[in-house]
């Protein structure tokens, strides 16, 4: 089992693309896209985020990344409302770069803290 990852974005395409890119270097990591307002438009969808966290949870924790501040608030809220809020965490990281770095760390078996710090310290130029 590995730490799971959820990509919270206002755009469904953006979330799906990040999953595709990060997944390429982390084939065994569950990375779930929670993008768009659920109606085909730009926006976030609290229920989709909550469901994504559930699907990404294998027992080892889930890391959430987001695109804009309002997506961060939705992600935070979804984590707070979990039965066990300690089982997931939102990370302040550049979305794409953090997702790739976090996914590679998760693939290597890093725990929740390890994936969080890999994502948070991702660089744009790598």
């Amino acid at each position, binding site marked *: 089992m590995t730490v799971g990852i959820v990509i919270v974005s206002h755009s469904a395409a953006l979330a799906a693309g990040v999953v595709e890119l990060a997944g390429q270097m982390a084939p065994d990591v569950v990375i779930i896209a929670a993008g768009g307002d659920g109606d085909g438009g*730009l926006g*976030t969808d*609290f*229920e989709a985020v909550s469901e994504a966290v559930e699907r990404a949870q294998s027992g080892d924790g889930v890391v959430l990344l987001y695109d804009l*501040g*309002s997506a961060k*608030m939705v992600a*935070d*809220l979804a984590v707070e409302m979990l039965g066990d809020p300690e089982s997931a965490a939102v990370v302040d990281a550049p979305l794409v770069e953090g997702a790739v770095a976090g996914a590679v760390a998760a693939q290597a078996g890093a725990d929740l803290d390890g994936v969080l710090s890999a994502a948070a310290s991702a660089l744009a130029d790598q």
Partner: protein
Amino acid sequence: MGCDARAVAAAVRAAAAVVTAHRDELVRLDQAIGDGDHGENLKRGFGFVVQALDESTPDTPGAVLKLVATTLISKVGGAAGPLYGTAFLRAATAVGDATELTPELVAKALRAALEGVVARGKAEVGDKTMVDALAPAAEVGSLAAAATAAERGAESTIPLVARKGRASYLGERAIGHQDPGARSTALVLRAFAEAAS
């Protein structure tokens, strides 16, 4: 007048009517310094709230506020969803199981709502957000005074640069525009004050 669950539900319906009536104004404010959806976000969200209240009105003021919170959280995709949602959620917790809201409980709920919004969005007074309307409102004694304070607070955002939310990307170009979330907060509080009077 008494302030039981039905009265709180009526106040929420009044707020829904007001944000619906002011949809275009809020859209215009958000077009100037954001993505232009704030009016539609709130109209849609409160529309679902009214629908939920039509289906079944909860027994206590706290349960009504909680229903508002969960509906806004799940139906509003945008900053307003988690922010208004958290405000109503904290207000619901603050009033507990009380069957009637006293002025003290209302004041406590307002302070809790403010704390929730600050915890959620990390904005301070002066960051050109709804906190600029809610913070002065949470300091006064009555809903009527809170609404007036919120209106002043919303207007105080006009000369500011935004430090949170989408408008923060604009830098100096946000100056001269009222923050849409602060404006909607004042509208909602005025609707509550009038419903309670």
